[in-house]
Structure formats: structure tokens, C-alpha cells
């Protein structure tokens, strides 16, 4: 059977045993999905999303041999994504605090993601990222996994390391906010 026809779990087993082809196939299969999740997490900032994606795949390379067949491979992979996104968010917060003074004195040269998106007249994407940015980090995590990537509440709970009910509650709260902000949309 060709590598592309193998399921994720089989490829992960093979990669864990040292099969380069299996690792490449697995990485190729999931890189766009990981990037898509990271992009939403970063409210559309492509550079940050690429950084997160890179870290996720370096961690995957370093830790694939720890993969245990207890659950689906994607659940395990998304856990790595979530952890990296959270770390990145923490680092970004700390960096922003340090750079606040500098930014006040320095004129901006590069257009922000919002500016780029506006140039592209992609209002819908802008609205989407604006919505995500305004949610709390916990609600954003639940929305990205369930609404953006179609995961069940149960799978999202496994990825986020919380109870299924917690995911349901976070989504309920997120939807309430979204209705308030965009009630007339």
C-alpha cells in the first residue's frame, strides 16, 4: 500500500520506528491543517502562524517516537498545536510588554495583517479574525477546534485537557458573545 493511502495511526507507528517516508507523508498531510488552526489562533497573523507551525513540526519530529496508539493521531497532534499556541501567546504577551515603549517612538513600516487584509478587501476574513480576537483565549480555543475544524466536543476536550462539558460551556458563552456583537449580521 502506498504511504499516501495509509491512515494516520499507521504512518505515526512507522515514523515512531524510524521510517523517514512515513514521517514525511504525515507531515505533508497535516501541515496545512495545523497552519490553518494556528492562523486562527493568531487572529490572521501569517508570520506568527508560520512560527507556530514550524515549532509544532519540530516538536513532532522530536517526539513522534513517544506516540502511543491510545487515541487518534490528530488528537495528539492538535494537543501539540494547542500547547504551542498557548506558549506563543504567552511569549507574545511578554514581548508586547517589553516593546510598548519602543513602539511609541518608532513609526510602523510594515503593514499589519489587518491592513493587508483590508487591502485585499477581504472583509469577511477580517470580521472572522476580529471575532476570534475578542473572545477569551479559552473560548477561542474551543471555537477554533469545534467551529473552524469540525471537531466534536469530546475530541476538543481531549485536545484541550478539560471536560467535555467545559468545552460545551465555553462554546455557549462564545456564541452568546458573538450574537451580541454581530446580532444584526
Amino acid at each position, binding site marked *: 500500500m502506498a504511504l499516501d493511502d495509509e491512515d494516520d495511526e*499507521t504512518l505515526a*507507528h*512507522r*515514523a*515512531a*520506528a*524510524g*521510517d*523517514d517516508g512515513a*514521517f*514525511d507523508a504525515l*507531515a*505533508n498531510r497535516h*501541515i*496545512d*491543517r495545523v*497552519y*490553518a488552526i494556528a*492562523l*486562527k489562533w493568531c487572529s490572521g497573523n*501569517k508570520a506568527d*502562524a*508560520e512560527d507556530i*507551525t*514550524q515549532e509544532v*513540526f*519540530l516538536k*513532532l*519530529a*522530536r517526539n*513522534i*517516537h513517544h506516540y502511543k496508539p491510545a487515541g487518534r493521531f490528530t488528537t495528539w497532534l492538535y494537543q501539540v498545536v494547542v500547547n504551542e499556541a498557548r506558549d506563543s501567546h504567552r511569549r507574545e504577551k511578554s514581548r508586547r510588554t517589553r516593546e510598548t515603549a519602543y513602539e511609541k517612538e518608532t513609526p510602523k513600516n510594515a503593514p499589519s495583517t489587518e491592513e493587508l487584509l483590508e487591502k485585499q478587501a477581504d472583509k*469577511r*476574513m477580517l470580521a*472572522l479574525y476580529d471575532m476570534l480576537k475578542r473572545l477569551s483565549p479559552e473560548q477561542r480555543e474551543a*471555537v*477554533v477546534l469545534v*467551529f*473552524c*475544524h*469540525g471537531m466534536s466536543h469530546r475530541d476538543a476536550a481531549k485536545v484541550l485537557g478539560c471536560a467535555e462539558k467545559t468545552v460545551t460551556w465555553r462554546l455557549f458563552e462564545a*456564541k452568546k458573545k*458573538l*450574537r451580541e456583537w*454581530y*446580532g444584526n*449580521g
Partner: protein
Amino acid sequence: MDDDKIISLFGEDRDVKMDAAARKRILSLAAVEYSVVKPNRRPTEFSPHHAVVHRGSPLRVAFLTALVICLFLGVAWQRGHLHFGEAPREQREKVLLAEFNQLFEGRLQAVISTGGQTQIVLAPADAAAPRGQPVLIRFTDKGKDIDVMSFSGQTVQVQLDGRDLVFDTLVNGEGRVILAGEKVFWDGSKGAVTDAPAVKIRTEVLEM
């Protein structure tokens, strides 16, 4: 805005594609990292060589392998061919260095490997990194190895014994590696002067 509308709005660009160059760079980096840290390829139920590799009992195979290695080491030692950076390892380092250097278009300053973790140090995008001879440096600190692949003329920073050690890497006219920094001076002929005396240093110039 009802639930379906919210879900469809968020789900529309689920399969967004990343920039092709970034995709290629990340996949290459991951592949290199995987090749560095992956476990030794061993036979699995998926391996087409399964039947061949499992002919002997694991104990017998281990014993024979150890015997062959001992014989090889003994012969190599006697002939004086065995030195730091034996051929397969040196070959691997050369390939790695060449791969990384190509990947980062001459911005590579150093590759530092510690206990299976690899750190890549790059020069800023607008700085042309001077390219000297490639060198391999191994620090052994409390039984743990830190391998540094860098180039003559580069400044490198590693953490040894919980402290940062910064040094310039130089290759002199005789082809000998010299490490010179505030807290360390290493010259192959004179040994190391450092405030971490327990640390052992070995160096080698890599012929590319």
C-alpha cells in the same frame, strides 16, 4: 446570527493553504530534525526486511554486533585511525551542516545539539555571515555531550554547567581550531583554560 451561520462562517476557510516557500522550509526543517533524533531504524511489523532481521535471537544478534564493533575498534585503534569524529559521524555532521547552510542561504552561524535537541543559530537576514572553514566542537560536561557545528570566524554561545559560554571560533594557519572568549581559551596544543575545569573540549576541522 444563528448557530449554523456562526459555524459556517468559521468553517469556510478550514483548508487554507500556507505560503509554498514557508511550507517547504518547515517540512525540510522537520525532516532534518527527524533524521537527527529518530530512533535507530529497527525492524517493525511494517518492515519488508522483517523476516531477515529476526533470524537470530535478539541476544545473539546483540552479542555478535558487539563483537564486530569491538573488533573494528581494536583494529582501528591499533592502526591509529580512530580519533574524534570517526567517519560516519563526521559524514553525518557534514551533511547536516551543508543541508542547513543551503536551507538558510548562508545565514547559518551554528548548529548546536544537546541531548537530542538541535538549536540553529542564524545571522540576521540583512547581515552577510562571513564564511570560514567549518568546524566541529564537542563539549563534554558531566557525561553529557554538546556538539557545535560552526564556521571559523563565528561567535558561538553555549550553556555549560548552567552558565553561558561565549567564544569566537577560529582556525589558524596550521589548520588547528582555537576557541577564544572571555571565560574560555582553547588551543588544541595547550588544552583548555576555562572557569568550568570539568568540561572537556574536543575540536575538529570539517573538510567539506
